């Protein structure tokens, strides 16, 4: 499942569904709203494009790291401290591939998928600057 959605997901169920007979390792990344003196976080996406790019990242990760299954769920809307922002579930035959595939996906998302975060503090709001100054990937 590749999805941009408001609702949270059942990670335990995703893990079970990620397993097939060749699975030896499942690695899950769960990005969480951190309490950097904020009340909430507001997430916004260019949904159609972001979803297409997440699908492309999942495909590339599968090929590059020999993955058996990939889920990426990126949440949008208002999220409180401690809530899940991004859940990545990957399965592979062996652990090196599962770790590398998981890491590849999160780094690619940070690099180029059109999603933005605003931290809502008691003094107002602040857009989170991206990790990568030039944003959304390379021109195609």
């Amino acid at each position, binding site marked *: 499942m590749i999805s941009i959605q408001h609702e949270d997901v059942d990670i335990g169920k995703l893990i079970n569904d990620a397993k097939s007979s060749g699975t030896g390792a499942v690695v899950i990344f769960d990005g969480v709203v951190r309490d950097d003196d904020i009340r909430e976080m507001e997430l916004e996406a260019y949904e159609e494009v972001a979803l297409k790019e997440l699908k492309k990242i999942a495909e590339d990760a599968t090929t590059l790291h020999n993955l058996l299954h990939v889920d990426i769920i990126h949440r949008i809307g208002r999220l409180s401290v401690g809530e899940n922002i991004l859940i990545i579930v990957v399965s592979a035959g062996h652990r090196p591939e599962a770790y590398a595939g998981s890491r590849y996906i999160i780094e690619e*998302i*940070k690099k180029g998928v*059109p999603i*933005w975060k605003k931290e809502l503090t008691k003094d107002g709001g602040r*857009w989170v600057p991206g990790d990568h100054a030039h944003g959304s990937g390379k021109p*195609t």
Partner: protein
Amino acid sequence: MTVKVRFFARFRELLGTDILAEPGKGAAISTLVRDIAQEKKEGYDAIFDEHGNFREFVIVMQNGKRVETADAGKTVIADGDEIAVFPPVAGG
């Protein structure tokens, strides 16, 4: 012809989004965006520098594909296009 302009994040807050525009035939992306942004000085200043060029960090897409801002002055818009303009991404 009718096109839709979508701003995101801070640009959306300053300029709104899903703006329908009717540029003349042969209009370039940068002209279209400049015309819309000019309605609100703060929004214009967020996107364009003092020479009227896209600021270095601004990202522009035409129908979901990135257009280098340096090329946006010669990239012509077609009927039904969706133009997106946004600051650096911060997902994940």
